[in-house]
C-alpha cells in the first residue's frame, strides 16, 4: 500500500510530533484534568421522551453521603441561550429551562458530590414524577412538523421538472439511511472552575473559540473571562462542534458549589448528549438521454431533527456540484421529533452521495454503459452552478488511477458473473465531489533567541495531526528543523481559529501560518533596517528566504544571519508576528474546490448465508497538496473504516414506542473491528489548489464519502440485489 504524493512542498510522512506523548499516556485529555478540591458531577436523564416533570423529589439524593448539590430546573438560575454560530446555526438550547421533556435522555438534573461514586449513587436517588405525553417519533410520522428549506441552501438551476417530463430515461427511487452515532473513543468530559467571575473550562470540543463564546453568552460574562482548554481530544467526528448542555451544566455546577467540577459522560450518554447523524430518507429522480447524459436531477432529502434544536445540515448539499447537468433541483426537509438533537457527523453529504452514486450505477445497467464511463460522460469540467473554473479538480485522475490500481477492467459487467466457490464477487465504484471550506483563522508565530519557533492559535488537534502539520509548515516556512518548532493550540485565549471540523482546519490554519511566517520575516527585516552590522540591512521581504535557522538572500545564500544572532545583537528575547486568512470566494474568478475522490470496492457475498464481506477498497483522492502523506493516508483509512461501519453495521435504534435509544452501548451498537476491515489502498492525485494559500484541501471527511455507494454497487454487481437502505443487513441479502 504505497502512497503517491503528486506534489511535495511539504508532504513528508513525518511521524506525529505528539505520538510519544500519546503512547506514554502523558497527553492530557480533558477527562485527565484534576484540581485540588475537585468534585464530581453525574447527570440525571429523562426516562420519557415527551411530557412534563410534575415534581422532583431530591431529598434522598441531597441527604446522601458526600452530596454537595442537586441542580434541577426548580433551583437552577435562568441561563441565557447560546449565540448564533457561524457555519452551524443556533446553539443547542440551554439546559434546565423549564419542566418540559423533549426527548428521552434529556438532562433533568445534575448531582454534585465529593466522589464520582457518591455522585453516581445519589443520582439514582433523584425521584422524578413525569406527566407523559405521546412522543412524536419516526421520520415518516404524519404528526411531525416538517421544515422546508430551513437553511436556504436548496439548489435550483434550469427547469428540472420539465426536463424530467421530457427525458428519454427517467429514474425515480427512494433511499433510507439509519441514524448513526459519532462515538469518538474518548468519552466527552468537562472540568469547570471559576476564579471569581473568570471561568476556566477543560472541554471536549473541536472549537475552543466557539465554546468560549457560547459559555460567555450563557453565563453573561465577558468572553475574555472565559478560557476553554483542550490540548488533546480523543476524537470528535463532529460531536465536539457544539457546546452541549452537559458542559453548560458542569460550569453551572462549579459556580453553585464553588468548587472545580468534573463531568465525564458515560458511553450511553454519548448517544444522547453530543449529537448524532440524523436518520434520513431521500427521493431521487434523474432524467437522462439514452447516450447517458444527465438532463435532470431532482433530489429531496429528509432528515430528522430534535423537537426544538437546530441542525444546519443539508444532506444533498453536493448534488448540484457533482455533475454537469443543466437542470437541477434539490429540496431540504427536516422533521421535528422527540429525539436527542442530531448534529454533524463526519462527512455531512455522504448520505446524498449514496443516493446519487447508487442511482448512476442503476442507470449504467439500464443504459448498458460502464459505470465509470457514465460518470465521465457527465464530468463537470467547470463548477456546474456558477460556471466558474474549479480552483482545482483532479476527479478524472482519481477515476483513472483508482481504476488502474483496482483493476476495474477485470470486471465482467454481467450480474453474478464473477464467482469463486460459494462466494459471489462484485465490483462497484462511486465518484465523490465534496464541499471545501476555508474559514477565517488567526495565528501568532514567534522566534526566540534560542532559535526555537512557537506557533500559537486556538485551533485544536482532535487526533488528526494538527500539531504535526502545523509544525511541518512552520518549520518549512521559517527554515527550521521540526524539533525547533513548538505548536501551542487548544486554548481559547490564543488567536481565534475555526473548528477542527468541516475538513477546514489544516488549510485555514496553514494559510494563517504562511501569512504569519511572511510577516515574521518582515519583522526581522524591520529590526535590521537601521542595523549597519547586518548583511541584510535594508533588504525587503522578496529579497530573502529562510533556511537552516537563518535568513539569507534568495540570490546568494552566503549572505545572511541566524535568527539567534539577530535577536541577541538587538537584545530581544523573541520576535512575534500575527497572521490570518480571510478567504473571499467572491470575485476570485474561480469556484473554491473541495476534495474529490473515486472509490472502488470489491465485495464477496455468500448469498445463501447472507454473508457480506468487503474484500478491498481502493480510494483515489484529490485533496490538493498533501501536507503529510502518512497522516493523510491515516485520515482516509480511518474514514473508510467509518464508511464501512455506516454501510454495513452502524444503526442507532430509537425504540418506536418510548424514544429510548435501544442500543446505546458498544456491545449493541456495532462498529467495524479489524475482522471487518480489508486491505485499504489509498492513492493521492492532483495539483495544489489555487484558492488555498498552501495548496491543500481538507481531507478529514472525504474518506467516508462514497464508501456506501461503492459497496452497495458491488453488492448489486455480485447478486443483482439493489440495496437502497443502510446499513446493509443480512435480511436484505437473503
Amino acid at each position, binding site marked *: 500500500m504505497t502512497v503517491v504524493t503528486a506534489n511535495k512542498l511539504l508532504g513528508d510522512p513525518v511521524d506525529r510530533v505528539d505520538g510519544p506523548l500519546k503512547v506514554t499516556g502523558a497527553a492530557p485529555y480533558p477527562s485527565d484534568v484534576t484540581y485540588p478540591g475537585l468534585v464530581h458531577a453525574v447527570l440525571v436523564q429523562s426516562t420519557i421522551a415527551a411530557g412534563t416533570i410534575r415534581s422532583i423529589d431530591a431529598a434522598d439524593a441531597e441527604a446522601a453521603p458526600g452530596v454537595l448539590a442537586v441542580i434541577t430546573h426548580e433551583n437552577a438560575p435562568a441561563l441565557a441561550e447560546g449565540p448564533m454560530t457561524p457555519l452551524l446555526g443556533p446553539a443547542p438550547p440551554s439546559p434546565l429551562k423549564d419542566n418540559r421533556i423533549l426527548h428521552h435522555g434529556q438532562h433533568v438534573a445534575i448531582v454534585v458530590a465529593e466522589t464520582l461514586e457518591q455522585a453516581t449513587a445519589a443520582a439514582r436517588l433523584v425521584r422524578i414524577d413525569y406527566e407523559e405525553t405521546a412522543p412524536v417519533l419516526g421520520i415518516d410520522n404524519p404528526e411531525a412538523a416538517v421544515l422546508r428549506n430551513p437553511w436556504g441552501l436548496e439548489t435550483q438551476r434550469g427547469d428540472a421538472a420539465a426536463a424530467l417530463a421530457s427525458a428519454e430515461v427517467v429514474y425515480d427511487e427512494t433511499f433510507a439511511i439509519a441514524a448513526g452515532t459519532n462515538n469518538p473513543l474518548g468519552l466527552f468530559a468537562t472540568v469547570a472552575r471559576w476564579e471569581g467571575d473568570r471561568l476556566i473550562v477543560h472541554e471536549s470540543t473541536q472549537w475552543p473559540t466557539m465554546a468560549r463564546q457560547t459559555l460567555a453568552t450563557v453565563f453573561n460574562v465577558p468572553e475574555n473571562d472565559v478560557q476553554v482548554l483542550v490540548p488533546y481530544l480523543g476524537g470528535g467526528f463532529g460531536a465536539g462542534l457544539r457546546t452541549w448542555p452537559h458542559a453548560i451544566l458542569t460550569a453551572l455546577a462549579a459556580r453553585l458549589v464553588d468548587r472545580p467540577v468534573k463531568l465525564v459522560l458515560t458511553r450511553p450518554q454519548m448517544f444522547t448528549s453530543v449529537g448524532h447523524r440524523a436518520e434520513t430518507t431521500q427521493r431521487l429522480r434523474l432524467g437522462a438521454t439514452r447516450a447517458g447524459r444527465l438532463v435532470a436531477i431532482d433530489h429531496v432529502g429528509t432528515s430528522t431533527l430534535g423537537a426544538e434544536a437546530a441542525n444546519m445540515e443539508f444532506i444533498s448539499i453536493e448534488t448540484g456540484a457533482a455533475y454537469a447537468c443543466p437542470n437541477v433541483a434539490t429540496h431540504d426537509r427536516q422533521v421535528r421529533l422527540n429525539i436527542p438533537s442530531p448534529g454533524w457527523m463526519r462527512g455531512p453529504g455522504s448520505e446524498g452521495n449514496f443516493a446519487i452514486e447508487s442511482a448512476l450505477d442503476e442507470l449504467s445497467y439500464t443504459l448498458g454503459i460502464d459505470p465509470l464511463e457514465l460518470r465521465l460522460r457527465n464530468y463537470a469540467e467547470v463548477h456546474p452552478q456558477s460556471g466558474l473554473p474549479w480552483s482545482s479538480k483532479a476527479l478524472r485522475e482519481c477515476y483513472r488511477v483508482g481504476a488502474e490500481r483496482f483493476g476495474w477492467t477485470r470486471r465482467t459487467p454481467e450480474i453474478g458473473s464473477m464467482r469463486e466457490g460459494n462466494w459471489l464477487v462484485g465490483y462497484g465504484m462511486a465518484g465523490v465531489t465534496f464541499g471545501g471550506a476555508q474559514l477565517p483563522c488567526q495565528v501568532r508565530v514567534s522566534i526566540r533567541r534560542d532559535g526555537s519557533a512557537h506557533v500559537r492559535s486556538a485551533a485544536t488537534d482532535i487526533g488528526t495531526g494538527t500539531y504535526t502539520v502545523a509544525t511541518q509548515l512552520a518549520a518549512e516556512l521559517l527554515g527550521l528543523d521540526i524539533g525547533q518548532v513548538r505548536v501551542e493550540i487548544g486554548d481559547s485565549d490564543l488567536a481565534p481559529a475555526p473548528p477542527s471540523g468541516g475538513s477546514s482546519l489544516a488549510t485555514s490554519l496553514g494559510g494563517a501560518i504562511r501569512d504569519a511566517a511572511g510577516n515574521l520575516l518582515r519583522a526581522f527585516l524591520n529590526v535590521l533596517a537601521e542595523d549597519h552590522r547586518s548583511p541584510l540591512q535594508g533588504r525587503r521581504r522578496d529579497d530573502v528566504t529562510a533556511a537552516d535557522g537563518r535568513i539569507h538572500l534568495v540570490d546568494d545564500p552566503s549572505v545572511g544571519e541566524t535568527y539567534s544572532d539577530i535577536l541577541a545583537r538587538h537584545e530581544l528575547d523573541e520576535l512575534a508576528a500575527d497572521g490570518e486568512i480571510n478567504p473571499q470566494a467572491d470575485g476570485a474568478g474561480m469556484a473554491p474546490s473541495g476534495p474529490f475522490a473515486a472509490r472502488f470496492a470489491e465485495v464477496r457475498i455468500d448469498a*445463501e448465508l*447472507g454473508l457480506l464481506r468487503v474484500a478491498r477498497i481502493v480510494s483515489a483522492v484529490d485533496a490538493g497538496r498533501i501536507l503529510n502523506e502518512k497522516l493523510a493516508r491515516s485520515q482516509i483509512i480511518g474514514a473508510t473504516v467509518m464508511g464501512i461501519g455506516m454501510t454495513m453495521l452502524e444503526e442507532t435504534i430509537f425504540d418506536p414506542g418510548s424514544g429510548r435509544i435501544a442500543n446505546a452501548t458498544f456491545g449493541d451498537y456495532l462498529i467495524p473491528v479489524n475482522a471487518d476491515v480489508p486491505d485499504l489502498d489509498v492513492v493521492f492525485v492532483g495539483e495544489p489548489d489555487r484558492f488555498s494559500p498552501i495548496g491543500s484541501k481538507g481531507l478529514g471527511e472525504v474518506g467516508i464519502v462514497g464508501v456506501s455507494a461503492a459497496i452497495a454497487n458491488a453488492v448489486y454487481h455480485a447478486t443483482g440485489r439493489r440495496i437502497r437502505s443502510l446499513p446493509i443487513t443480512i435480511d436484505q441479502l437473503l
Partner: protein
Amino acid sequence: MFPVEFEYEAPTTVEEAIRLLAESGGEAKILAGGHSLLPMLKLRLAQPPLVIDIGRIAGLSGVSEQDGGLRIGATTTETAIQDSELVQRLCPLLSETAAHIGDQQVRNRGTIGGTLAHGDPAADMTAAVLAAGGSVTVQGPNGERTIPADDLFLDMMTTALEPDEVLTSVWVQTEGPRTGSAYEKFANAASGYAIAGVASVITLAADGTVARARIAITGVGSKATRASGVEAALQGKRADDQTIAAAAEHAVEGVDLIGDLHADESYREHLAKVIARRSIQRAVGRAATKS
C-alpha cells in the same frame, strides 16, 4: 473481573481427583485447559469452592489406535488433535474440526475432554464426536463406565457425567474405506463459536449409494445432536446434489432452536440447512475419491 476465592488442588492420579470431587459433594470443578472454566469463574457464573487441576495427571493425554478406532486422552489439546498424523489419517474429521475451534491460543490450551464435559451448545468437537460414532470413558468412585456420545449431551451445558465423575478419554471410530467426512461451520465472527456447525461422516456403497450417514449438528439448539432426519433421508439414496439438498432440509428436525442477538431462530434454521448441505456435499465428495 476476579473470580470469588476458591481452593486449588493438583492431584497426580485420577483416583485422587475423584476423591477430591466426592469430598466436595460434587461442588468442585475440574480444570483442564481452562478455556471455558476460567471465563466462567471470572464472570462469576461458576463459584466453586475448589478447583481440581487434572493437568498433572500422567497418562491422560495422547492419541492411540484401539478397537477399530482412536483413543484420545481427555487432556489432549485441540492443537495436538489438529496436528496428529494418526488423527489426520484415521479420523480426519476430528483434525478438521479442531482447526475450526477458537483461535490458535485457544486450541493450544483447550482440551477435547474439557469441551465434551462442558457441553457448550456452540462447541465444535461435540458434533464431530457424535458424527464419528464416538464415546467417552468416565471414572467415578464406583469405577469406570462408557457413555456413547449419543447419550452424553443432555441439555445446555449439561452432560450425563455424574458430579463425582471425571472424563478420562474419548474414543472415535476410524473412517473406513469409501468414507468421507467434513465439518462445515458458520462462525460467530468475534468469538469463533458455531452459530451453525454440521459434522458429516458418509460411507458410500460400491454402487455409489449412501451405505451409512452420520450427521451431527451444533450451535443451533440447546445441545449438539445427531440430525437423524437428515441421515434417514440419505440412507440408501444416490448422493446427488438434489438428494443432499432435500436431506439437508431436515437439519433442525427435533432441535430445540435457540435464538440470540447473533442469529434469531429462523436465521439459525436457514443457516443450519445451508451448512448441512455443504457439509454433506464435501463429505460425499471425499468418500467418492477414497477407495
